[in-house]
């Protein structure tokens, strides 16, 4: 019964190489090496932020089969939470590199906690009653997003609130003719750290195994004795917390928090998770990088095409891989 050796799983490297391919194609058109490097680094930072915002949604979507059109609202809530933390911590800001860093970390942690808690309420009140009913999910989560957005406008006013990077992260590092904004490096580092952390949790912990198993077959996870509903709530809270962290990063990147920012980003976030393959963390990271590279290269080379560039990218990827770059085998 042991029989012949199991065929080795095919290592599907091509999707992971697509960002390199895109960069290689764009390089000759951009011409200047310094411009190319600057654009590419900026894209990697933007991709890291998109990944943070999208990674929770792809897990929740893949596992719970929930179309959460309210995910963008959590991005905005995260950014506004950072403005509150910065306002409270204003006397400390600029005091030292350490205090600036502490304030930045505090903003990230508070955004994660606030959005995680809000995610719990949102899941119990709005999402739980409509599991398995996609049309109702779309309607009710859009409704939820509108309510949250209006609450943000009522609480914080209609004007955008300033959200500048901590002083320690302002300015650029210059290497010859290449200039890299410090904050973008921070965002890139944080995005990479969260990517690695998610991979470790998903592959090395029991809760991660349960999430991966739940993405494949929720019923069997329940039949093994695990309360899938609790897992759903936990994943939804984590997804909301990640959206909140992404909102802080994006808000600082844009130097402002606005109630509508999440809704505007949601299209990009959905493109990222569809390109990546629903439920796949690695696919999400590659999808986010691709989306950011295309947006920046197109913005530089043909600004008029920038708006449609990601739609074209999504169509191209889906023609090549109809279930995304790294589809999960069972769904």
């Amino acid at each position, binding site marked *: *019964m*042991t*029989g012949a050796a*199991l*065929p080795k*799983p095919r290592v599907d490297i091509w999707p992971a190489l697509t960002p390199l391919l895109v960069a290689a194609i764009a390089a000759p058109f951009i011409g200047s090496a310094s411009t190319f490097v600057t654009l590419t680094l900026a894209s990697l930072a933007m991709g890291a932020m998109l990944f943070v915002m999208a990674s929770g949604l792809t897990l929740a979507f893949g596992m719970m089969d929930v179309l959460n059109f309210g995910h963008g609202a959590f991005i905005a809530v995260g950014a506004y939470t950072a403005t509150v933390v910065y306002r409270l911590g204003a006397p400390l800001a600029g005091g030292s590199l350490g205090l600036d860093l502490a304030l930045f970390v505090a903003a990230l942690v508070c955004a994660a906690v606030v959005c995680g808690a809000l995610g719990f309420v949102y899941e119990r009140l709005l999402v739980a009653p409509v599991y398995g009913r996609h049309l109702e999910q779309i309607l009710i989560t859009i409704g939820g997003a509108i309510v949250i957005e209006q609450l943000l406008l009522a609480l914080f006013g209609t004007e955008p609130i300033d959200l500048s990077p901590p002083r320690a992260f302002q300015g650029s590092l210059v290497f010859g003719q290449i200039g890299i904004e410090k904050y973008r490096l921070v965002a890139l580092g944080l995005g990479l750290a969260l990517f690695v952390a998610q991979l470790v949790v998903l592959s090395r912990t*029991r809760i991660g*195994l*349960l999430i*991966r*198993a739940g*993405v*494949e*077959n929720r*019923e*069997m*996870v*329940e*039949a*093994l*004795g*695990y*309360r*899938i509903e609790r897992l759903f709530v936990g994943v939804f809270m984590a997804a909301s917390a990640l959206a909140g962290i992404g909102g802080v990063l994006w808000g600082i990147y844009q130097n402002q928090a606005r109630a509508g920012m999440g809704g505007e980003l949601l299209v990009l976030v959905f493109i990222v998770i569809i390109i990546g393959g629903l439920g796949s963390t690695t696919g999400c990271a590659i999808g986010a990088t691709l989306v950011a590279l295309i947006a920046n290269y197109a913005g530089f080379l043909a600004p008029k095409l920038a708006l449609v560039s990601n739609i074209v990218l999504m169509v191209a990827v889906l023609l090549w891989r109809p279930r995304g770059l790294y589809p*999960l*085998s*069972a769904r």
Partner: protein
Amino acid sequence: MSANLTLDGVHTHIGRYHILQGVDFAAAAGRTTMLLGRNGAGKTTTLRTVMGLWRASRGTIRLGEKRLDGARPSEIARRGVAYVPETMAIFSDLSVRENLLLAAREGPMDEGRLDWIFGFFPALKTFWLSRAGGLSGGQKQMLSIARALIEPRDLLLIDEPTKGLAPAIVDGLIACLKDIKRRGATILLVEQNFRVAREVGDDVAVMDNGRIVYAGAMAELAADRELQGRLLGLSLDSHQ
């Protein structure tokens, strides 16, 4: 350790369909009860209803003194029931090891028990760290059964484990089922392969149109061709 499974007037509706229409039978503790019947008789629905994957709309289901009807599948699993579905439902993106790790709810896997399982299904040891999705159909079935065995359970619900398997693998499965029985577990087994049914079954319940139409000893049914033809529409000897 094991206990009687008792179904009393169990009805199950799936959507507008009334599938189980008053199922009454008992699977005795420590014995293997075969659940037979034509396609569509309600065998799989019975197992899924016991497991809580379909909710009984009426009637009671008991494992010993514990009520199972109305409970969530996770609670039923924690009351000592393991389920091997017809589809196997292995987690194909997880390795063999990870599949078994999830099934061992109570903590680390028992090495002795693992060796016992490897004795019947050595392929699982060979492909321990391989992705389960890459296993053959027979190996996936072994994994699905191993997942139900990795911790001691009072009741095993197994749905057509030999479907589509090569005869050599079926022999290993028969040996495994006999050994599980020797260890005292109660087994409720849906099986179309008569050789397997005759070799491992102690008792039998035959379903038709969502009801139990015959219950008795497996040996009696196996010896009575006329009864087989009347209950199942064919001789079981021709169905293996």
